[in-house]
């Protein structure tokens, strides 16, 4: 006979501390400890990265320039080059990690991420359109041209518009197909190729300087980060993470299947729609400032889920930290491991591609 009568005693405060509860509380501490150690690791690599570079600076120099900036070249290197890139990697990595983990959760699709669903490419097209034709950017240089974004709001809005179009397409595909993870990722591939074609056409009709500038801009790179446009991503990231934090129980309920979530009072269409729109906005903002950085939204969450399981109370902050770590490490490798500086977008795709295959392999082993 199973005795459930002692449950009612819990409500009266006569609580028997069970072994199950104690073990769970210990396990929960382990997850918190994982988050804290990841954060410390992120801090360590940030401190390590800030010293690297052509201008040889000691930690003492860096601290003094950080605390007392002046007009010297060294101060400019610390404040205008190194710090924005490191903070940029942390903020953009967190944003993409967060967008990825939320998409995976609300679509119940381990392969979902801004990049694999084609949202990054759609945003890239929108941003290019904004830079080239909506006076959002300025083409600088002649032989080595690059695009400087002088109106981040226009570029972000244009990127967001196309990111939303891609998102709506994914939502429609979920409504009218079996919505299996593979189907949705194939739809993402189609979206990527449609917007890839649009982008190619835009480059085809553009003049040489614009082509060069836009191609350079498309490589996801932290070199484009400025304090100005970083502020937009940062504010959005704070708002989005707060919203997602309040919704974490809904996302957990959705992990248990749609019927369970509905039975637990979750408004699935609304939760899914708002979650996707905010994720698309995060992606669009990052893409319009840094270009396409693929797979962070896939790699970050998957590392965290492997290590501490899939509980959104911990995977949401965990994926943000891990996204930041992966992007910062990619920046470190791209900038200092080779003689040539390689944009982070290329590095993350090189790491993310094989991981994507690994996830596919694990899910579909014979």
């Amino acid at each position, binding site marked *: 006979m199973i005795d459930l009568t002692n449950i009612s005693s819990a409500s009266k405060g006569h609580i028997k501390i*069970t072994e199950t509860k104690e073990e769970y509380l210990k396990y929960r501490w382990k997850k918190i400890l994982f988050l804290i150690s990841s954060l410390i690791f992120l801090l360590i690599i940030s401190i390590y990265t800030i010293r690297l570079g052509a201008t040889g600076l000691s930690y003492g120099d860096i601290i003094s320039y950080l605390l007392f900036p002046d007009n010297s070249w060294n101060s400019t290197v610390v404040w205008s080059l190194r710090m924005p890139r490191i903070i940029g990697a942390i903020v953009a990595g967190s944003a993409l990690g967060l967008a990825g983990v939320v998409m995976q959760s609300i679509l119940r699709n381990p392969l979902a991420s801004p990049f694999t669903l084609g949202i990054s490419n759609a945003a890239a097209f929108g941003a290019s359109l904004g830079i080239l034709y909506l006076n959002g950017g300025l083409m600088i240089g002649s032989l080595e041209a690059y695009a400087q974004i002088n109106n981040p709001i226009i570029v972000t809005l244009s990127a967001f518009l196309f990111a939303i179009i891609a998102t709506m397409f994914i939502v429609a595909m979920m409504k009218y197909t079996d919505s299996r993870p593979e189907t949705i990722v194939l739809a993402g591939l189609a979206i990527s190729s449609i917007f890839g074609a649009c982008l190619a056409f835009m480059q085809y009709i553009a003049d040489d300087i614009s082509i060069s500038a836009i191609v350079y801009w498309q490589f996801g790179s932290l070199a484009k980060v400025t304090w100005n446009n970083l502020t937009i991503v940062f504010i959005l990231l704070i708002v989005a993470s707060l919203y997602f934090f309040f919704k974490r129980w809904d996302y957990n309920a959705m992990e248990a299947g749609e019927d369970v979530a509905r039975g637990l009072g979750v408004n699935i269409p609304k939760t899914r729609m708002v979650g996707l729109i905010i994720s698309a906005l995060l992606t669009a903002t990052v893409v319009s400032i840094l270009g396409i950085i693929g797979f962070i939204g896939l790699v970050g969450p998957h590392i965290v889920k492997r290590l501490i399981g899939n509980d959104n109370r911990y995977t949401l902050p965990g994926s943000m930290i891990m996204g930041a770590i992966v992007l910062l490490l990619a920046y470190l490798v791209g900038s200092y491991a080779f003689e040539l500086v390689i944009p982070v977008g290329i590095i993350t795709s090189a790491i993310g591609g094989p991981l994507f295959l690994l996830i596919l392999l694990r899910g579909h082993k014979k």
Partner: protein
Amino acid sequence: MMLSVEDLRFSYGDHLVLDGVSFKVNEGEVISILGSNGAGKTTLLKSMCNIHRPQEGKIVVDGKDILSLSRNDLAKNVGFVPQTAPASRMTVFDSVLIGRRPHIELNAGEYDINIVAEVIDSLGLSHLSLRYLDEISGGELQKVHIARAIVQEPKVFILDEPTSSLDISNQHMTMHMIEDAVRSRNMCTVMTMHDINLAIHYSDRFLFLANGKAIAYGGVDVIDEALIKEVYGIDSEIIDHRGIPLVVPMNSKKYNHRSNHHHPHDIHDHLDQGMPT
């Protein structure tokens, strides 16, 4: 407390799936909904917890129509256990804790953790508490789904085919568990069942559905051969097994084969021909 379902109607487009279904359930009572595939059993259950919003009708618990409540308040009253649900990489404890979602404001508190630990202990899942769902068996996973709905502390407990994917031993173990939970917490329980004999063992009353209509409702005495024929379209024999009725379908080839061999006419034929018997 009593659950009263009144004139529930639901249709998918033009196709009427539930055609004015009404019944009542007392607290601590288990009702099984029986009927052939497509009779509307699962739709009836899902309408009762607002997964499908019924077009007409009322579901009254404690004198209050729960369909007029907010999603969250409805979830505090009605717990739903689906037939199947995906197994994610989440621990058994965390997955059961999700059942507290309608009650949790921001963080899981002391009471939430306690009730989950207690239910996990009582259902014999303690040894699996920190295992991931994708590492446990189908029977254990079903227990997790039931535990999740119990910690929801609902007044109405709804289960869709709780034993459909289980072997015979797990079927009875799960049904025992459900029965004990229902009796000790006095929940009004409604479940759909395919196995009529299993339903007879564990239910107080039976609701038979055919084409979205309730065609019989009552205790075990409502079950007879004519009803089985009407609901499932098969011949059957209801035999008494230690005081419990057992429905035996009579349309299998084995029965036909055996009845041909042992039919009384065969014996008479032998006698008529003067052969020794």
